[in-house]
């Protein structure tokens, strides 16, 4: 997003802020609820390794997410980018298994505070849903019941998850609405009486209800106009700082990620193409897909006619191409690309790339550890803004 779209009172968090361990400890110290019983206090907040979520269809298994690994630190904002159907949403929803009935997590680990959620039973997972990981749904109008007052709906997670009384839950719901900028006197309104931006704020309030560690934003600003979008993003950023949240932002709008996130994970056809600090990935993209994706984004300063497109279409995930899945559309495709799955390599600046253009033997490349570290090994000098 360009500068003139920013609203004046924006207090910018450095977009490439790295979360120091000390801050992580402080954020955990401020939790309203104790850590889950089995939690390892020293473990990273979230560590996803080799996640494979497949969908069973008549044509066979659709490999929507096929070997995705990433980490998320306390207070960090991670953007999930990629075109439609690349597995962004499936990846995020796999964390707390909010998947359609034909989906299976066939492999991989989702470790929250060191607890593997994939191994948990449906009943045991309820402890983590909404209380540790909550979601801001896409399309707030549809996610709100049209005939119930907004505050009553915000109060629901408090009643169901935390067994609070109706009265306490409603009081808290009104506070939450206040926190996201909906005045108290509007808390008794019905969804259709609120504007699109206010409805999205209400959804954010609902996501915050149980004081979660991670909030997943599934295209939280997609249906909103640019002004409201900026307000919502600013709100998310402010809440992240004030409440010490970790954010996972799913969007196909790269400008949203550039503005809000510390790190970005670019996915293609169910795999990670490139991952790293926003400032590095967006200024010096390495994976051909990332380059193409950034080039196909309209730039206000560039000639409109030169807008790049990626030829071809994403592969069929029932029978994905062997080797690198981007090969059929890749301008740099080599013979090896269609045969060997490219290994993920890590660079010194924290960027992780899966592409044969960058073989592990490259002198710039640092060997990738089995599970990537949660925080990008960046200069810690740029002290992150302390929470207010």
């Amino acid at each position, binding site marked *: 997003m360009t500068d003139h779209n920013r609203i004046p009172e924006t207090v910018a968090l450095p977009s490439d802020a790295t979360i120091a361990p000390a801050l992580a400890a402080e954020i955990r110290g401020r939790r309203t609820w104790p850590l889950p019983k089995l939690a390892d206090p020293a473990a990273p907040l979230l560590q996803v390794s080799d996640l494979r979520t497949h969908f069973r269809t008549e044509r066979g298994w659709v490999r929507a997410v096929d070997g995705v690994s990433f980490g998320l630190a306390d207070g960090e904002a991670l953007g999930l980018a990629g075109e439609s159907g690349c597995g962004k949403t499936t990846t995020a929803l796999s964390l707390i298994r909010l998947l359609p009935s034909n989906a299976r997590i066939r492999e991989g680990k989702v470790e929250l505070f060191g607890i593997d959620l994939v191994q948990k039973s449906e009943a045991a997972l*309820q402890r983590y849903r*909404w209380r540790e990981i909550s979601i801001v749904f896409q399309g707030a109008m549809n996610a*709100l019941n049209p005939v119930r007052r907004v505050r009553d709906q915000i109060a*629901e997670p408090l009643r169901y998850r935390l067994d609070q009384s109706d009265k306490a839950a409603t009081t808290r719901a009104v506070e939450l609405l206040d926190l996201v900028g909906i005045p108290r006197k509007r808390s008794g*309104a019905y969804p259709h009486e609120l*504007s699109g931006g206010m409805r999205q704020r209400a959804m954010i309030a609902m996501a915050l209800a149980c004081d979660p560690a991670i909030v997943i934003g599934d295209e939280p600003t997609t249906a909103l106009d640019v002004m*409201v979008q900026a307000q919502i993003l600013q709100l998310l950023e402010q809440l992240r700082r004030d409440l010490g949240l970790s954010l996972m932002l799913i969007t196909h709008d790269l400008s949203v990620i550039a503005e809000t996130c510390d790190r970005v994970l670019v996915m293609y056809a169910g795999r990670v193409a490139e991952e790293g600090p926003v400032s590095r990935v967006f200024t010096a993209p390495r994976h051909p897909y990332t380059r193409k994706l950034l080039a196909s984004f309209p730039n206000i300063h560039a000639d409109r006619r030169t807008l790049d497109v990626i030829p071809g279409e994403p592969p069929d995930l029932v029978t994905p191409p062997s080797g690198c899945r981007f090969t059929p559309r890749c301008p740099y495709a080599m013979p090896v690309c269609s045969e060997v799955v490219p290994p993920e390599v890590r660079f010194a600046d924290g960027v992780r790339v899966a592409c044969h253009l960058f073989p592990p033997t490259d002198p710039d490349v640092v060997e990738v550890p089995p599970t990537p570290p949660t925080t990008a090994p960046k200069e810690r000098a740029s002290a992150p803004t302390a929470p207010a």
Partner: protein
Amino acid sequence: MSVTGITEPDLGLEVVRRRGDRARGFIARGLGRSDGRVGVAILAVFAVLAIAPSLFVGPLQTVVTATGSSLEGPSSAHLLGTDEAGRDVLNLTVHGARISMTIGLMATLITIVIGSLVGIVSGYVGGFVDTVLMRISDFFLVLPTIVLALILAPIILDIIGPEAEFAGIRATLLVIVVVIGVTSWATTARIIRSQVLSLKERMFVDRARVIGASSLQIMWRHIMPNVVNLIVAQAVLTFATAVFTETTLAFIGLGDPTAPSWGELLNSAQSSGAPGLGAWWYIAPPAVSVVLVVVSFTLVGNALDDLLNPRTRRR
């Protein structure tokens, strides 16, 4: 629009007032509609008559306590004339309100409770439960009310005896209530189920499940409020049908001769040959009463439907 300074548009909604104010606002809005006002007024009159008929027209007249002679026309002594046994028609009509309205309300209650329950559960749970419930409702859907009543009423009366009473309500009336309830819930269930089928695919139901609501809570708190307008509309229709059915059953002689409902009055008017004798005062009062109650219920139902649905609520 600034982040915090969102101005509140005047929606005329009592969102900040306390509960009592809100209830008052609700009634005021209901009475603000002219159709609602007329409906409530008519219903109020009949309700008062049904609750305390003796206060207005004295105790129910029987053949023994009749005050006039046979089929007198309207006069100052008998405002609506008398029947063939010399009973005051006004007296009978007012006392008939209680029976007719009681039967209407009870039958409506049975229909709506069973119908909504079956409709919501069947639509929301789906699968095997849905199939079973819908086959059962199909069975009741094809049963004709009158025929079933013709068969059930004598059988039940034979078993429990015509003098049996349950909570002050004579068995005969109870049979009519049960028959009407049993034969009309299936329509309600079908209509509500179809709406629930579309509602449960809506995203807010998924969202509710994600935040931890159980199926029961989803049905009660999320699905039910969305079908209230259907339930109200069905209740009104059922009440009207129930009053009519009771009238019909009484008219063909299946009523309780000692409890003069409006249908019972029409029945005896017909059998005493009142139409042939030109005794319009014997036929008109009960007939007009039935029409008035049914119409006013429809008016109130329409007004309620608009009030209960936040989206169509007048601002």
